[in-house]
């Protein structure tokens, strides 16, 4: 299967750096504004994760919760998330899009219908936080049929045996959770330790791209730059919250932050 996500990693590797992945919540702080933000950060980021906001997010810390609740309060619906992706993909400099969210949102939309819609608007990958292996086995196949990557999460608690099984059945991209934490936690493990765990995972199948996420900020990003890709989420959501509080433009602030993040890993 062809997927532009592979190209994004290839390009970053050619430039001898990790790919930069951003996470923002669809509809934060409005439907239109979140689209403007995607367009503004496209220049610096390699892959964009877009959160489908859910009001019972059991794996998210306070920053992403705040963004999600704000988006829901502003009336965002699953249909609007697709609208944002569709519009964004009209931008000729658009980057691969990964939707990230919780399983109930997909379940209520209808699994099949959800994937068809993803395909139609140009979604390239999915991360479903509370839908792990082997529960997601058949969904993994359905995604593959549509050339959409279902990105598996791997955690420091994942046993070796389980890592092997998940990776064997996975699509070409996976996601390593840096530490025991919800999103947005302080990095409580040394980057050295994280990279040690990371390379243990990489060794199982070096061909598959593995990104690292959770707790990465402007401060810590450089120390993890040997990874295939790095995800920054909460720090960006926080920037949006701060901008709103200070009555500043979240678009320029977020674009500046992403630019700085990129600069750190060049």
């Amino acid at each position, binding site marked *: 299967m062809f997927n532009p996500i592979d190209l994004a990693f290839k390009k970053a590797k050619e430039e001898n750096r990790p790919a930069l992945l951003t996470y923002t919540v669809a509809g934060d702080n409005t439907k239109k504004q979140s689209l403007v933000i995607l367009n503004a950060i496209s220049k610096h980021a390699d892959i964009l994760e877009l959160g489908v906001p*859910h*009001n*019972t*997010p*059991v*794996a*998210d*810390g306070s920053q992403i*919760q705040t963004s999600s*609740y704000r988006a*829901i309060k502003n009336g965002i*619906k*699953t249909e609007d998330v697709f609208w944002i992706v569709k519009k964004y993909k009209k931008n000729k400099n658009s980057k691969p899009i990964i939707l990230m969210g*919780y*399983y*109930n*949102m997909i*379940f*209520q*939309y209808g699994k099949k219908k959800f994937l068809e819609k993803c395909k139609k608007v140009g979604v390239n990958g999915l991360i479903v*936080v*509370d*839908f*792990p292996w*082997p*529960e997601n086995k058949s969904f993994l196949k359905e995604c593959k049929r549509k050339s959409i990557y279902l990105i*598996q*999460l*791997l*955690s*420091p*608690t*994942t*046993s070796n045996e*389980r890592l092997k099984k998940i990776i064997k059945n996975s699509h070409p991209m996976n996601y390593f*959770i840096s530490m*025991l*934490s*919800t999103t947005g*936690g302080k990095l409580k493990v040394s980057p050295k330790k994280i990279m040690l765990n990371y390379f243990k995972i990489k060794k199982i199948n070096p061909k598959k791209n593995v990104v690292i996420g959770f707790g990465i900020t402007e401060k810590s990003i450089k120390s993890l730059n040997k990874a295939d890709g790095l995800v920054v989420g909460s720090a960006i959501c926080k920037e949006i919250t701060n901008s709103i509080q200070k009555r500043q433009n979240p678009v320029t602030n977020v674009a500046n932050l992403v630019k700085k993040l990129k600069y750190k890993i060049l």
Partner: protein
Amino acid sequence: MKLKKGIPVIDQGNNLGFWGGKFGGNFVPETLKKPIEDLEILFNKLKKDKKFIAERDRHFKNWIGTPTRFIKLENLTKYVGGAQIWSKVVSDANGGAHKIYNATVHCLLAKRSGKKIICGDTGAGYAGKMLSMAAKKFGLKCKIFMGAKDIERQQPNVRAMKKNGAEVIPVYSGSQTLVDAVSECMRFWVANCDTTAMCVGSTVGPAVFVRICGWSTSQISRELKFQLINEFGSIPKKLKLYNCVGGGSSSFGFWNEFMDYDKKQCEFIGVEAGGPKKSKRHAAPLTYGSKIGILHGAAQYVNQNSDGQIEETESISAGLDYPGISPLHCFLKDTKRARYTAASDEDALNAYKLVTKYEKLRPSLEPSHAFSVAIKEAKKMSKNTIVVVNSCGDAYKDKKILEKRLGKKYV
């Protein structure tokens, strides 16, 4: 979908933890897969271990106090003028509610697994109070997550938790009630599962928590079965078991031992919280036909909008104020083994007034929901019908609400 005979309902899920092939499961972040698997292995082993069961029974007997009373409500029966109305006074249990069984078992498991800290959620504050008691008894540090709204309305239990040395962490997100407390507790566990055990306060959450809780509260029906035979010589020909249903732990425990009886002989009636009469909001997903969705790691009937956002609930009783319901009850509903209905806030208050007027019993607002339906239905039943209501909590914790809604003389 079929209920099997001779196999405990908690063990009727498939290999992925789904009852009836679709309720329950483990919709959890990857980080929790391992701790959940560890807990499953430990629980499956210990529940067959005679020494562990003896240890459990010793604590149930000497510390929790078994059996709780089974009493006839003579005056209420006379007033209603239909079936005989009895009550299983589970609020006799140490701490004042059924939540003590689950809390005790979780602490025993935590000890066996070498954990030093235990975290838990609470709505009415009973699950939190009991966990704080058990944690103290077994030498564990205890953290309780509780919605800010519930902290405000269930002060006596909050005070008890603090007195037992637990840290009570207010949750300000969402509706600031039980649903948010469970979410926050799960988040805490995600970040601390290496050192901390989690206790889910009802038969909800990932499958193993549903099973542990149901296994623990089944003590209620073990006692009741014995007491019924003692009283009537055998299980009555017409037995109706009424229980309020929040997450579903007291009701499941109240029914479990009678599961294999024909429902014509032993009928189960679950009473959900219908919320204020004037409000569209409720906490009765089974009664009002909510759709299946995923909440707190399990597939279940749950109040939600068409997009899949969990809806806010409303109920006078903090313990029933939860948008979802145990997968076990979804299973019992769809196999038609149990029947579910709802009582409104006002119904519950009226039932509380009646019960306290005629009897020396002060059911909290949760069991008052069950009393409301039991009283209504008992009127139309024959004298040889035995109605039993689980009085699973004491009204002391509801003082503030009762005073406000009914006036001082009812407190």
